[in-house]
């Protein structure tokens, strides 16, 4: 990292840590929400930006973790963080493993459709059954506590502590994603995105690499979902729906897909717009949509970057100049893997 970049990162981090001393509780809680959704968007971006796979089911992993907390929490006592957080992460990872194992057999538009279908299946499971409150959702009456030698070391009831805990998780997410995207794993994942056929013929186990990315991404989405549920004290099926996935995708597109922390800034833009427009008019969603369209038009490389990265994943040869025509037919048969 260059010196200037380092200084900016350090300044941002210091500002983020110091925020509770400057901002009123309302804005601190708002910042917490932004960080949580930013974590979801960063998690999603491992698959979308670095993997070139547009998943529309990440809200499912986010929601499942929230539901795990809601189900595991006793009604009149706080749940143990040490127990429920790992449980939530295991549940999200397991869901990502199953959904990823099935959907990663498809490519491109079909991948989008399959992930959408799986996401909606889970949404309707929570919505249409009486399980965990059905469409009414379920309450988490008390925030989880982190007991260590009889002392709650992390009093999440205090908004300030909760904010710092979420900030720490967001930093952890960034560090983890930073590490793996720069490791051989990240290079293999990007290679599969840029030219699947070449990556495979060099010997990279593409399916395994992508599935690993999908599971890590699902687990991190679960981490965000756990804290979302803890913050609101409430989970509802909407948390798993495609609408939630799409918002995360918008954050990814706005924030930039080639950077680890970019989607966090996408979350700041989207949530900032929502927050500032809500007070002005009840038609704020319309205005928000128009502004987002304007941003995308003004910075086309963001959107183009997504398209360019997504399309080669299902047709690696489209971008390359065509030499020799006699194998066109056979080429079409070759993507059977």
């Amino acid at each position, binding site marked *: 990292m260059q010196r200037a970049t380092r200084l900016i990162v350090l300044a941002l981090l210091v500002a983020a840590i110091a925020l509770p001393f400057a901002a009123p509780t309302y804005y601190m809680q708002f910042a917490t929400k932004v960080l949580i959704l930013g974590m979801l968007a960063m998690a999603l971006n491992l698959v979308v930006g670095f993997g070139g796979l547009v998943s529309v089911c990440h809200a499912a992993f986010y929601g499942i973790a929230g539901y795990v907390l809601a189900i595991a929490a006793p009604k009149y006592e706080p749940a143990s963080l040490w127990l429920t957080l790992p449980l939530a992460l295991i549940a999200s990872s397991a869901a990502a493993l199953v959904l990823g194992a099935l959907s990663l057999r498809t490519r491109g538009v079909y991948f989008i459709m399959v992930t959408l279908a799986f996401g909606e299946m889970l949404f309707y499971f929570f919505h249409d059954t009486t399980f965990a409150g059905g469409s009414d959702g379920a309450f988490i009456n008390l925030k989880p506590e982190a007991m260590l030698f009889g002392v709650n070391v992390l009093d999440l009831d205090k908004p300030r502590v909760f904010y710092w805990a979420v900030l720490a998780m967001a930093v952890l997410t960034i560090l983890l994603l930073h590490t793996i995207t720069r490791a051989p794993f990240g*290079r293999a994942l990007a290679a599969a995105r840029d030219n699947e056929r070449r990556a495979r013929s060099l010997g990279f186990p593409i399916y395994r690499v992508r599935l690993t990315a999908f599971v890590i991404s699902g687990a991190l989405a679960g981490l965000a979902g756990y804290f979302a549920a803890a913050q609101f004290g409430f989970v509802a099926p909407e948390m798993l729906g495609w609408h939630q996935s799409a918002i995360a995708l918008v954050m990814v597109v706005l924030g930039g897909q080639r950077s680890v922390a970019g989607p966090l800034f996408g979350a700041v833009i989207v949530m900032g717009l929502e927050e500032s427009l809500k007070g002005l008019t009840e038609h704020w969603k319309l205005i928000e949509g128009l502004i987002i369209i304007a941003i995308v038009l003004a910075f086309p490389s963001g959107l183009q970057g997504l398209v360019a990265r997504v399309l080669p994943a299902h047709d690696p040869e489209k971008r390359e100049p065509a030499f020799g025509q006699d194998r066109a037919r056979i080429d079409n048969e070759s993507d059977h*893997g």
Partner: protein
Amino acid sequence: MADIAMRTAALSKRFGGLAAVNDVSLAFAVGEIHAVIGPNGAGKSTLVNLLSGDFRPTSGDIFVGDRNVTMLAADRRGLFGIGRSYQKTTIFPDATVFENVRLAVQAHAPSAIALMARTAGEQDLRMRTDAALSTAGLNARANVRANTLSHGEQRQLEIAMVIATDPKVVLLDEPLAGMSGAESRDMVELIKTLRQGRAVLLVEHDMDAVFAVADRLTVMADGKVIASGAPEDVRRHSAVRAAYLGAETLHT
């Protein structure tokens, strides 16, 4: 006879009613460039795709050494020592030349998909990448983005990537397609060096190049092998004359 690096036994591939490759049994020896020629639609590219694992055969077997690799997917065959170039240059266009070759080296390293970069491992990859770049004569271009290279250089890069995986068998699918005269001559020289310690399968339409480098020549037509042997013997084969090689080609 020299060591057989790879062989096929009654290999066939059907696309619906079309037998693109029909009952092909060939052996590829270490140290030999084995050229496969034939008119368009003869099944040459399909054969290469079957050998590389990009296609699954309808029937028949493929052996690397004694090992039957017919059911191995393309990535496993890559690890098993089969490297290939594609008819259309297939590289990572947005990455630099160095990054392209490093991916090839990395794919066969113990750390191929490690979740954490280790200093020693990265250093090892860098050294081996530099060595592969020197072998291919691409040192000066190491930090250039691959999609800014000339077509000939891109092909050279693709072959450098294949060599960097240290394959036992190299499959070259029309490496000279779309090349200028000077680029072709360089590529022919590069191809000649590949046979050292490896078996090379060369599919190529440029007959001058084929006769300049081939140690063994197989002619295919309609998915079948119609002749196979030393280039001079095949040249005189009457079936080949009838099916493929025009009289003019023979006398040049």
